[in-house]
């Protein structure tokens, strides 16, 4: 499995190069990668069916308990088959769709990378690994939606999809960490064995909510559904693949995967059932009012995802079987319809609205056949897989009359959409000015195979149920289930309901102009919807960032100094308080009169330096501070420091006095308010430093380095003045650095003085 994943990633990397070498056949050649995965998976079917999952793992990061663990069981297998199978067909389709497009190689790379990430999600047996692949799918989806990056709408939609799904991904990450803590393992196969333990854990509810948010954002559940219709900005191959049959099902997969660990509780039902039902109905109702091909499909996808969550939320063996059957049926017909929708737009020169299309049956007979088959499957007509799935579904809802009614309404909407795409664009008269021709062979392969599968799998419903649905449903339920699907289940009340739904649906379809009219009147309500909320939130974040930048980045040096001082003071003071403040002040040297007098003098001189309005007085006062420092050094056994300080202070004062000859006096003064603020901040800083010094006195550190120097100064370096020996011998390299600094400063100052700046009026 690991080899296959690596192989697919390699194929993604090779794609642009291959496209340059073989522009016409790159898609078909690259399709070998998913095709080989599909074939390999197919051969694993017997083993997995008999309950022997394929496992593989190796240690990834030692010590972090991070294993690259892969596991193929019934649920993974069904999803992986869909991903690789539809992926293969999509690559063929891409080749036709992007024929002659210079960026086809880039698109192929993205979509294969996505496919591999998606395979990673369903094959991973380690929660963190799932998260990594999960985020990879969000990222590749971003690249695919924004593929037409010169269009602003595409960029916005891409960003929206990524922000929503990545945000959800972060919730998922936190949820996963909590779940791993509660279960005591990262391995999913072990976690799902410990359901009782996890459900009794104090963190069960947070875990459930966090993971649900992650899954709901990815699978476009209300109120996060809005990104999916917007994501239709993606090129059709991406929409057909990511936003109908694979990526949006990642959330469904994850919840299904964790169902044995998290499911079956009241909380599980209380979250999943309402959200699923709302999404199911909302998507169906919104779909009715759409006229654009891909948006029609997008809203029904939202609806279908809601239905899956609903069925999973109910969590009975029946509903789980029904859900998996629906997952399969939906993936087949939805991918077909998307490919046909893209084909229609592609072959009519960019027409996207179904109301402007018509009479395409002559120009595009094969597309018509495929669309009709898939559309009928979507509507749930016999003898298609959609019918089988819907009957199982209705059967599973037998005990829930209200949900049954909801299903009928939703089902009727599906009939409408199925007809809108599988019937309407092809019938009637061709509008004037519309030119169309059949899709090229590469684009036809996918729809034909999938549409035939919609029909064919229904005739082999028993085998399909036994080999594909049963292992998957068993994995979700956590116990072996038996699945018996029938195309003809006998004459019972569910058949009646199913047929009634079809009749209502056809009625819905006839009344379509009425719905469109209604939808137009309701359009104003969108400003209260989640999409508008997202826009507002997004705009306010940008506004906040701008406000904060304006506040902090004023361009005034003084303000920056202020912020630095303030932040440092607050942080250091907080650390000081947390460390317990001042403990004890022991072993202090008693204050002598001369030191006390010197301290007072220094304080007075500092105040004078700050307060003085005259430049010279200010500098001289600073000189006084420096000389006092020198004196202080002599009091405490540091004659070298005293000498250096004296020399340097004298030099500084002279230098400043010289410079001031060229500089004006203090002319600029700030407002009283600014003075007050600065003074407060400065005094705060001073107080914190004082406290810090006092705190430092409490810390008694051993002085092995000093002792070493004192001991070996004469014996090793033959010098009597230890400070000097340190500077020129023990730490001579440091002194060399110091000299370098001095030299550089001197060079810099010299260069600055030599360069004569042009006068302002001389410059242009």
């Amino acid at each position, binding site marked *: 499995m690991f080899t296959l994943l690596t192989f697919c990633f390699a194929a993604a990397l090779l794609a642009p190069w291959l496209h340059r070498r073989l522009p016409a056949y790159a898609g078909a050649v690259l399709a070998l990668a998913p095709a080989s995965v599909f074939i390999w998976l197919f051969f694993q079917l017997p083993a997995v069916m008999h309950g022997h999952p394929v496992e593989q793992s190796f240690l990834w990061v030692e010590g972090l308990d991070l294993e690259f663990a892969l596991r193929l069981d019934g649920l993974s297998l069904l999803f992986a088959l869909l991903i690789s199978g539809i992926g293969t067909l999509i690559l063929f389709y891409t080749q036709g769709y992007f024929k002659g497009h210079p960026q086809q190689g880039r698109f192929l790379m993205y979509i294969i990378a996505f496919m591999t990430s998606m395979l990673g999600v369903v094959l991973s047996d380690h929660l963190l690994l799932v998260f990594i692949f999960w985020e990879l799918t969000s990222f590749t989806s971003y690249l695919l939606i924004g593929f037409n990056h010169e269009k602003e709408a595409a960029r916005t939609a891409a960003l929206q999809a990524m922000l929503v799904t990545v945000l959800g991904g972060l919730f998922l990450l936190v949820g996963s960490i909590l779940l791993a803590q509660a279960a005591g393992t990262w391995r999913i196969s072990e976690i799902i064995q410990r359901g009782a333990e996890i459900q009794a854990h104090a963190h069960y509810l947070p875990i459930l909510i966090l993971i649900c948010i992650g899954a709901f954002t990815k699978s476009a559940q209300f109120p996060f559904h809005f990104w999916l219709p917007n994501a239709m900005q993606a090129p059709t191959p991406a929409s057909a693949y990511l936003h109908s049959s694979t990526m949006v099902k990642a959330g469904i997969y994850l919840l299904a995967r964790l169902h044995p660990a998290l499911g079956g509780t009241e909380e599980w039902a209380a979250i999943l059932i309402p959200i699923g039902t709302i999404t199911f109905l909302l998507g169906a109702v919104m779909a009715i009012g759409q006229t654009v091909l891909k948006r029609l499909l997008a809203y029904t996808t939202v609806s279908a995802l809601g239905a899956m969550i609903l069925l999973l939320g109910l969590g009975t063996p029946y509903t789980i079987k029904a859900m998996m059957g629906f997952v399969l049926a939906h993936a087949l017909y939805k991918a077909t319809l998307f490919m046909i929708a893209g084909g229609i737009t592609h072959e009519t020169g960019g027409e996207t609205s179904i109301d402007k299309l018509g009479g395409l049956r002559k120009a595009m007979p094969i597309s018509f056949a495929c669309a009709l088959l898939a559309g009928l499957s979507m509507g749930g007509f016999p003898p298609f897989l959609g019918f089988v799935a819907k009957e199982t579904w209705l059967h599973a809802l037998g005990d829930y009359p209200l949900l049954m009614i909801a299903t009928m309404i939703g089902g009727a909407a599906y009939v409408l959409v199925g007809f809108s795409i599988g019937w309407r664009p092809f019938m009637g008269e061709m509008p004037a000015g519309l030119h169309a021709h059949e899709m090229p062979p590469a684009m036809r392969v996918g729809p034909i195979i999938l549409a035939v599968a919609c029909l064919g799998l229904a005739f082999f419903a028993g085998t399909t149920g036994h080999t594909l649905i049963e292992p998957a449903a068993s994995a979700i339920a956590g116990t072996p289930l038996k699945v018996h699907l029938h195309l003809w289940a006998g004459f019972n009340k569910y058949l009646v309901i199913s047929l009634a739904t079809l009749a209502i649906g056809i009625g819905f379809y006839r009344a379509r102009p009425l719905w469109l009219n209604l939808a137009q009147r309701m359009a104003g309500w969108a400003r209260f919807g989640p999409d508008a909320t997202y826009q507002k939130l997004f705009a306010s974040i940008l506004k906040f960032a701008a406000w904060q930048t304006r506040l902090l980045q004023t361009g005034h040096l003084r303000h920056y100094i202020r912020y630095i001082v303030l932040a440092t003071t607050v942080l250091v003071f907080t650390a000081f308080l947390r460390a317990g403040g001042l403990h004890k002040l022991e072993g202090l040297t008693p204050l002598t009169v001369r030191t006390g007098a010197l301290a007072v003098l220094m304080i007075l001189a500092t105040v004078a330096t700050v307060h003085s309005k005259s430049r010279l007085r200010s500098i001289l006062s600073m000189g006084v501070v420096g000389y006092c420092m020198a004196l*202080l050094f002599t009091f405490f056994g540091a004659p070298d420091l005293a000498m250096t300080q004296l020399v340097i202070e004298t030099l500084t004062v002279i230098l400043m006095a010289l410079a001031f000859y060229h500089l004006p006096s203090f002319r600029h003064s700030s407002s009283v308010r600014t003075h007050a603020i600065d003074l407060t901040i400065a005094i705060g800083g001073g107080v914190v430093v004082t406290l810090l010094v006092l705190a430092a006195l409490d810390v008694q550190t051993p002085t092995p380095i000093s002792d070493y*120097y004192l001991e070996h100064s004469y014996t090793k370096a033959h010098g009597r003045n230890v400070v000097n020996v340190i500077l020129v011998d023990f730490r001579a390299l440091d002194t060399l650095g110091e000299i370098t600094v001095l030299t550089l400063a001197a060079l810099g100052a010299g260069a600055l003085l030599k360069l004569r700046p042009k006068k302002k009026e001389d410059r242009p």
Partner: protein
Amino acid sequence: MEVALAIVIGVLYAGGLYLMMRRNLIQLIIGLGLLSHGANLLIFTAGGLRKGGAPILAEGEKAFSALPADPLPQALILTAIVISFAVTAFALVLFLRTYQTLGTDDVDAMKETDT
């Protein structure tokens, strides 16, 4: 003694910081000077004010009979004094040139890089 010095250090810091937030270029440099005095004194005090003579061996002796002042902070401060002088001198020349080029010594007026 330490408490007195700690207060002096605090005053030096407060004065230095306050001056650095003023609008006149020169005050900024003077503030920098006060700040380095404060920092040097901080190292000196934090290193421990030890009674005892300078860390210099008397002629003829090979080891200290009594523990002298700690030589390590002294070496550090010596370096710091010299470097702060270099910084002050360079800043002074830089500001002088800035003033001559821009025609202002008001820090608030120095918002543009394009002059």
